């Protein structure tokens, strides 16, 4: 079972790596946002720059996963290779887990420039321990967005998946408080954010890199989101039969 997960992950990575522009593209956007928004506006204040970098990492985690999985899977499903893979003696789990692993690896690559920019062009600082914690938290908060992407990708055609991912990602980012400093968002956002996947994720990131207090409520809601989104993604995978005609 675990070797099948690795097999799937490996093949996804090989495929992606042979289209270098896709890899470079996913690394470009978070880095550009760092240079455009964080470096000039919060770069000189150590605390603000650290929190802003954590928000940017969360934002990048959300948007790249929503698009990579939502649109990527929807695209794969209309290729004739996908129905063939479904005749192989393996269920949903190795494919899901393989996609997860390869997604995490790609994410690490695309977040590297963000971390380098934060380290060299801003006053952001973290202790080595906090940095390691932040890496672990980044992996954890990727999970709900990967699952959200999979749920989208397995339940709709590519054109619809692009639209839904675009419609979802901005409100999720805003209402989760990713666009503002901790405690700086409008009141209703502050109330709602801890219970959204974005808000719960960024709070975990802030707690990892700074003195932000860890709220049990937002941790529990993140776990609930992971369980619920895993359920939706699995359901979508099982009912999917590839291309649909009527």
């Amino acid at each position, binding site marked *: 079972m675990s*070797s*099948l997960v690795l*097999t799937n992950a490996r*093949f996804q990575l*090989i*495929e992606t790596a*042979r*289209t270098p522009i896709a890899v470079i593209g996913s690394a470009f956007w978070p880095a550009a946002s760092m240079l455009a928004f964080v470096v000039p506006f919060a770069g000189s204040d150590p605390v603000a720059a650290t929190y802003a970098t954590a928000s940017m990492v969360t934002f990048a985690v959300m948007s790249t996963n929503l698009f990579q999985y939502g649109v990527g899977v929807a695209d794969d499903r209309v*290729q*004739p*290779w*996908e*129905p*063939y893979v*479904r*005749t*192989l*003696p*393996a*269920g949903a789990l190795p494919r899901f887990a393989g996609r997860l692993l390869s997604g995490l690896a790609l994410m690490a690559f695309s977040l590297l420039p963000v971390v380098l920019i934060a380290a060299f062009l801003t006053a952001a600082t973290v202790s080595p321990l906090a940095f390691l914690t932040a890496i672990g938290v980044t992996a954890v908060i990727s999970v709900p967005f990967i699952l959200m992407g999979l749920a989208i990708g397995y339940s709709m055609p590519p054109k619809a998946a692009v639209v839904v991912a675009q419609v979802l990602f901005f409100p999720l980012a805003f209402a989760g408080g990713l666009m503002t400093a901790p405690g700086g968002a409008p009141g209703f956002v502050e109330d709602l954010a801890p219970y959204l996947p974005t808000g719960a994720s960024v709070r975990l990131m802030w707690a990892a890199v700074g003195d932000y207090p860890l709220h049990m409520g937002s941790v529990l809601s993140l776990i609930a989101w992971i369980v619920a989104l895993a359920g939706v993604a699995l359901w979508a995978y099982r009912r999917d*039969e*590839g291309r*649909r*005609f*009527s």
Partner: protein
Amino acid sequence: MLARAIEVTRRYGDTVALDRVSLDIAPGELVGLLGPNGAGKSTLLSLLTGVRSPSSGRVELLGGDPRRPAARHHLGVTPQETGLPASLRVGEVVDFVRRHYPEPLPRDQVLGQFGLTDLVRRQTGGLSGGEKRRVAVALAFAGRPRIVFLDEPTTGLDVEARRSLWDGIREFHAGGGTVVLTSHYLEEIEALARRVVVIGGGRVLADDTVSAVRGLVAVRRVSLTSPVPLPVLPGLSGTDREGDRWHLVTPDSDRLVRDLVAADVPFTDLEVRPASLEEAFLTLTERSVEESCLLSS
């Protein structure tokens, strides 16, 4: 039974792709599924291999539900050759498939058996159509299956490659393997299969030996030019007209020509030739519709 469909119906929205189809495939059989495009062959294969589920009825594969991975441990299927992941190399694709099976064939044996050894480092996107087809067929055998479903295995291959592939299929069958293959070509089915299942309009139209089915589909196409409209002629299973050129499809061309002469039709350029398989299928389909009308009235 290695694979069976019991009263299976499959709908796509309002379209009925398969209409109460029943089919049993016993161990060691080599069955040809024959039918025109859109007849329901691919839908039947997708149900038997677990890609889709039936709208009603039941399918079984190796004693289990093909939607469950455990039932597919000894199943081999050809992907469509257009669907190979373009950026992966031949060896990588073969390995990817092999790793899904409990006791796969050694990689070198898979490559060697299908003449792919020299292509192992090539990306599948850069292969020719025939090379892709060989990779696709090799993948069906990579997991050491007990039953293989080969969808149009030799379409687009040259004669030599086709013969060597046929030999490979025969060898697998001789070793006790069960084969289900679909084809547009009667020739391919004749070369390999003992039993032929003809599918048309979502139904099983015939399920018999190769020679019996050949008799069923032996219809002829009579073409002629006539300046006047043709009279009503008995025994026609199809009529097609281009200007004053008429194409008539019939199981009995001798009788048709006699009837034309007896009716004093001033025809010229008479031409009689065996009908294509498509035309033969049309005859079979229409006959089955007539029969079911008779039965229901």
